[in-house]
């Protein structure tokens, strides 16, 4: 059959130079058929030609490698929340349209009843995994290799939140980033040694805005998307140095402001020290002795928090093992304050806590009242914009095919915070399939593969 097909492809290529599809053209342009139809059909060579023509057409038209058919697509950037098909060829999305015919694709996956979203972006993780047992997060076991957590929860891109600084970023890159299937981006810590340990993170002499900015702009602009300021015990010095570096490199700064005793003013942080576009993480943390909370003891969102969001400060969840409490999140959401980005703060102390994985975390917010479109926005297009990576977090034709497919399970579920309190819920997202750069990298129930008996057919 391939030889046969090849022959006719060449035949039509040849004839089309003179007159494309001469036979068809003749059929269409004549008011009356050149010969009676029965006569035409009797001509076996004509039938031969007609059928070969069909085969050639269908062969040529199978330009889609993988067709995702019939799923409910949620693509917040493009305002899509409806049943629509997605065509993937090679690494990229090549078509998004209603009812793409199956015969235009080499392989079709029926996604009726499933939700299809851009691959999730987890904007706050710690993945600088390594075997330095003296270290806390940089090159240490507290950080996790990303691939074991990402694909099984629909994540295709993670942003490491300052595990490395300019001194050890290249080790991080060689060791983890270059070896992972997950797309790993990173915020560079303002401290040169990153998160080696709490003590080292206080060293103001190792917070070098110029070297930090150079590392980002001159060395790794494709990977380094911002700067991290975290775990500082002193005044605003560290934040100010991080912002100085942020100005030099024209990237946002993410602040974990959680270890001041007594607490530092978050109003001053939002209104004076940070720029619009900078990020406040661990938004719903409740540890009032270390970090000023956004919701007061009377469960009211502090007025300046709304002002800060209007000013352009981005609020990131950063759930973690100690930074998400319902007593902050539930009142905030009820009063109309929604986080800009939903992220995990994945590391070894958070992975088995109230946080489980990103799909579970998005479900938690859905059960606190957000719609599926709202949670997907906060884990796709919103973080992409915050880190200035507008090539990610959407399903535009021409972009790399990073796609997540979910089942929305209905039932009786529970969701925990880090204070070992819970809410009940009636819905939970489960990751059915994940596609990274056009390749299926997670397939829970085998939607993309044949039955085993097919081996013997």
């Amino acid at each position, binding site marked *: 059959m391939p030889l046969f097909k090849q022959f006719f492809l060449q035949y039509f290529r040849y004839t089309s130079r003179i007159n494309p599809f001469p036979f068809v053209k003749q059929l269409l342009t004549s008011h009356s058929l050149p010969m009676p139809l029965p006569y035409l059909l009797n001509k076996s060579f004509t039938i031969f030609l007609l059928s070969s023509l069909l085969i050639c057409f269908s062969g040529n038209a199978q330009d889609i490698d993988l067709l995702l058919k019939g799923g409910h697509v949620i693509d917040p950037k493009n305002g899509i929340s409806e049943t629509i098909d997605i065509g993937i060829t090679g690494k990229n999305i090549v078509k998004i349209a209603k009812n793409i015919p199956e015969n235009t694709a080499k392989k079709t996956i029926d996604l009726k009843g499933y939700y299809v979203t851009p691959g999730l972006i987890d904007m706050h993780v710690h993945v600088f995994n390594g075997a330095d047992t003296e270290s806390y997060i940089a090159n240490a*076991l507290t950080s996790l290799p990303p691939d074991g957590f990402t694909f099984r929860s629909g994540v295709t891109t993670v942003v490491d939140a300052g595990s490395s600084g300019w001194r050890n970023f290249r080790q991080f890159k060689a060791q983890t980033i270059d070896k992972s299937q997950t797309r790993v981006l990173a915020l560079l810590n303002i401290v040169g040694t990153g998160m080696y340990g709490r003590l080292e993170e206080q060293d103001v002499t190792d917070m070098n805005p110029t070297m930090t900015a150079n590392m980002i702009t001159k060395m790794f602009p494709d990977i380094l998307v911002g700067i991290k300021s975290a775990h500082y015990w002193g005044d605003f010095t560290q934040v100010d140095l991080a912002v100085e570096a942020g100005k030099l490199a024209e990237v946002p700064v993410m602040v974990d402001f959680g270890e001041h005793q007594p607490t530092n003013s978050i109003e001053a942080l939002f209104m004076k020290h940070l720029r619009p576009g900078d990020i406040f993480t661990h938004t719903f943390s409740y540890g009032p002795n270390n970090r000023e909370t956004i919701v007061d003891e009377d469960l009211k969102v502090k007025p300046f928090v709304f002002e800060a969001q209007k000013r352009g400060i981005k609020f990131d969840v950063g759930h973690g093992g100690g930074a998400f409490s319902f007593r902050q999140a539930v009142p905030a959401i009820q009063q109309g304050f929604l986080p800009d980005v939903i992220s995990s703060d994945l590391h070894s102390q958070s992975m088995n806590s109230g946080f489980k994985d990103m799909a579970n975390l998005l479900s938690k917010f859905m059960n606190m009242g957000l719609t599926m479109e709202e949670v997907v926005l906060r884990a796709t297009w919103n973080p992409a914009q915050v880190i200035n990576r507008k090539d990610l977090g959407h399903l535009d034709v021409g972009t790399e095919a990073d796609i997540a497919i979910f089942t929305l399970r209905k039932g009786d579920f529970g969701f925990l915070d880090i204070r070992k309190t819970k809410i009940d819920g009636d819905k939970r997202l489960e990751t059915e399939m994940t596609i990274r750069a056009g390749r299926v990298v997670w397939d829970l129930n085998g939607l993309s593969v044949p039955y085993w008996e097919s081996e013997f057919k």
Partner: protein
Amino acid sequence: MRFFLIICFCVAYNMQAIGQEYDFLIKGAYLIDAKNDIRDTMDVAVSDGKIVSVSKNIPVILAKKVIEASGLILSPGLIDPHTHVFVGSKSKTFADGFYSVSPDDFTFRSGITTVVDAGTSGWRNFETFKTNVIDASKTRVLAFLNISGTGMSGDSTQENLSDMDAKKAYETLKLYSDILVGIKIGHYTGTDWLPFENALQASGKAGKPLLVECHLPEYSLADQLNKMRPGDIITHSFEEIDERLPIIDSEGRLHPFVKAAYERGINFDVGHGGAGFWFSQAIPAYQQGLVPNSFGTDLHRFSMNSGMKNMLNVMSKFINIGMRVEEVIEKASWKTAQAIHRPDLGHLSEGAVADLTLLKLHEGDFGFIDAGKNKIEGKYKLETELTMKDGKVVYDLNGLAANKYH
């Protein structure tokens, strides 16, 4: 009146005292405990990291925390006898390398409290493994010691005959007898039987099993099984690759010498991995009476996101192939504990360590994938609800042990 008040106070005080007797009471679950021959609804009480009571209807007043578990299965903490967890930063290798994974990332969320590393380290680098991973993990990490001195180092030393030292291996086994459960051989491409003999010798002297992997292309399967003793373990049982003769022949029949080895007491571990599990082997084998003795996942970087996924997924495959749920759970707990000579694990006897898991058996339409990227459909799938290790809740999917937020 005063007397009455004193009585009331005393009663209340005593009630409170009684009420603090148990840290946790798991109530109403269906307990599967093969060692104690229990397949029944039972309450289980936990205090100070130990199982303190197993009986019908333990009063809730006796416990500080009650976990309502009706409709769930209560199993001893599961044991995964085949993993690669000597994780480190070396590229392109398992020993101290990026190809291994951290155990805690995968265990508790699939009901596992104990993993056995399958010879990723040898006598030369076991101590690094111990410091970096075993001592730093919340999961109980046991290990087979590779007969090769550097374990799965991926370089030429892995095949160095003089490094496959039975004496050194035995000495290490003795020194760390609380962690090391046996010897492993795998990854040898030569024809010399010395490595195999040394592995048999070291494990035999220590009275512990030998685990045989399949990357031994010059040894015939029949010869390997003939040399193995009852209690030794062969893994990747359902593999269908060129490296080793598959146990099912091209006509779909189980090789008689394989069946004979199974009946002689050789343990057949699944060792799923990225390439080690094929329905075209497992289904005919099961139908012809070869039921796996344990459900090793062969967890590592290349299996974790494949058809394997996690141990409950591997166990669920066998439920859908036809095994009874009780049998699957018994094999993944007590039978595996026996296979690695750790009778202190895999059961919930009073006084035993409180390693346990609550599982939910979901009914629905599921699919399961093998290494050849083929699938079966299935109606059943196990999911972890809660895992407890040493009497502490280490994973709680839906907050069974949590308080309501309001």
